[in-house]
């Protein structure tokens, strides 16, 4: 850490960057290279999404046509309307599924950001007995395949009469349990470990409590990592199919979007309606794209500027 305070003074002494002028040409070439590489990669990475979108505009037969057509003619925009409006008897439809999904997602955001950051902070920054043991426990919870935990957990929930409620999909997250909990704890621990210790020490001297240091100093500094956790949480609970299938499938009023999507395979037509499935899938991933795009800002906003100057 001594290194960092030295760099600050070095930077001040020299009064800014080295001569930029002579670098301009090399810099431009470099940027063009980065941009080209990214563009080529982006074309490759776009493939699954483009295919999803074109398939969503095809007729049922065209989806599986060999060789596949990349531009459907004419595009079947009707698929989107059909996917949104068709629903089995006594099913509330996608409007309600959307509401339920948002309810679960928002609760899970609060639950996971709170519980995992607390635990990660302790594992990274508080010197308590048994710290390494508990870190090992966190990691080992990810090593047992979920299949064998699924059945005992289901039996437990049905004894508690939690099946057909939102509880199994939300309550565990307040305790960093099930799904991504341990993953996020490990991720945040790595980030908390890389933050400078001086700030915490200074706050401690000023009489700040450990919770205060966590809340007012470390959390703001860990914003990029927290944004990552928030985005992953959104995407995982938005996409989660197994959980709702196990615990909500008998209660159509509590269905999530992912369950509604699965209905296009078999449920209503005794066969998979690929055209509608693709249209509904496209609609389902749009909110995720928006969330990810908005979260960009926080990925970029690093700790670079905060705290260490002066």
């Amino acid at each position: 850490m001594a290194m960092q305070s030295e760099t600050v003074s070095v930077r001040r002494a020299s009064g800014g960057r080295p001569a930029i002028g002579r670098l301009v040409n090399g810099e431009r070439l470099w940027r063009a290279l980065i941009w080209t590489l990214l563009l080529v990669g982006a074309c490759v990475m776009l493939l699954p999404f483009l295919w999803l979108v074109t398939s969503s505009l095809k007729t049922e037969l065209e989806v599986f046509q060999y060789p596949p057509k990349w531009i459907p003619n004419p595009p079947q925009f009707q698929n989107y309307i059909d996917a949104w409006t068709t629903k089995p008897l006594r099913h509330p439809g996608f409007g309600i599924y959307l509401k339920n999904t948002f309810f679960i997602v928002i609760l899970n955001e609060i639950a996971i950001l709170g519980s995992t950051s607390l635990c990660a902070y302790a594992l990274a920054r508080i010197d308590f007995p048994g710290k390494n043991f508990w870190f090992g426990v966190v990691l080992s919870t990810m090593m047992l395949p979920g299949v064998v935990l699924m059945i005992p957990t289901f039996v437990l929930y049905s004894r508690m009469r939690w099946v057909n409620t939102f509880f199994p999909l939300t309550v565990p997250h307040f305790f960093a349990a099930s799904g991504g909990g341990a993953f996020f704890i490990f991720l945040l621990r790595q980030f908390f470990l890389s933050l400078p210790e001086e700030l915490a020490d200074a706050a401690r001297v000023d009489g700040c409590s450990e919770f205060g240091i966590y809340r007012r100093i470390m959390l703001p500094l860990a914003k990029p990592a927290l944004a990552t956790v928030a985005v992953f949480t959104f995407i995982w609970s938005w996409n989660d199919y197994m959980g709702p299938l196990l615990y909500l499938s008998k209660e159509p009023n509590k269905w999530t979007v992912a369950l509604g999507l699965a209905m296009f395979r078999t449920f209503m037509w005794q066969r998979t309606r690929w055209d509608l499935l693709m249209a509904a899938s496209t609609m389902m991933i749009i909110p995720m794209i928006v969330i990810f795009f908005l979260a960009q800002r926080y990925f970029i906003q690093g700790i670079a500027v905060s705290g260490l100057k002066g």
Partner: protein
Amino acid sequence: MSVQTRWLGRLWPRTAKGKRAVTGYLFMLPFILGFFLWFLVPALVAVWLTFFDWNMIQDPTFIGLENFRHIFRDTLFLQSLKVTAYYTLGSVPVSLVLAFLIALLLNAKMRGMAVFRTIYYLPSIVPAVANAVLWNFVFSTEFGLMNALLRALGLPKVPWLQDPEWTMPALIIMSLWGLGYTVVIYLAGLQGIPEVLYEAAEIDGAGRWAKLRHVTIPLISPVIFFNLIMGIIGSFQVFTAGYLITAGGPQNATLFYVLYTYRTGIQYFNMGYAAVLAWILFFIILGLTLLVFRYVGRLVYYEAL
């Protein structure tokens, strides 16, 4: 003052060490409660199940060590272990390095980066079912994109999903589209490197390579380490690709370990044996993780520790 608060007052430690211990465990409390209720309880049930024959409909019958003995006669167990190790060796190192390079590019301060970042992440959020159909097309022998590419390069076509030799390479290539998660984690890590360190390195005359080698890599090593560990844990439990695209075939060439466990338990109603399989995997991953912590962990640079 009530009895209760006096009792609490006595419990609250006076020494700094004691205070740290209590604070630490208070921070850990949600996780510890969750661990007991949602992991330990079902995991103990899973231990208990290893001694039983249970089809999930009738009551479990005690069969002693029969499930464990079966392991030694089970050729599919070995096959699935081999397949999973192959996949891990093929996909983890490549995606670890490739994701890092992509993250470095995406971290450049240039116009349009937000769009690029989103595009690189996109494949990770395309629903698995839609993805499976697409990859069946991509690897189709006659009309697939992959073979069209090979033809353009003057190479013979490959029966990607029919030949047991080629199916795993196909799935490993496919796994590279999912590296968006890893890229995002690297990006968050890159943001955490203070700008002043780069400026100082520039003043000292460091070029791009030197900055990467002496500033970026040491400071991001906790994140590289995270991605390595999670890559191993995750790829040993890979399931969806084998389940949706190849159904474990051809000739069990993609019978991943967790797919085999799932089939044993959920499809063939043999929950006791599935529990044995799951515990064996648990100890394999645990052993590997400990090895990595022991031999790679010491290369990691932490600010605080």
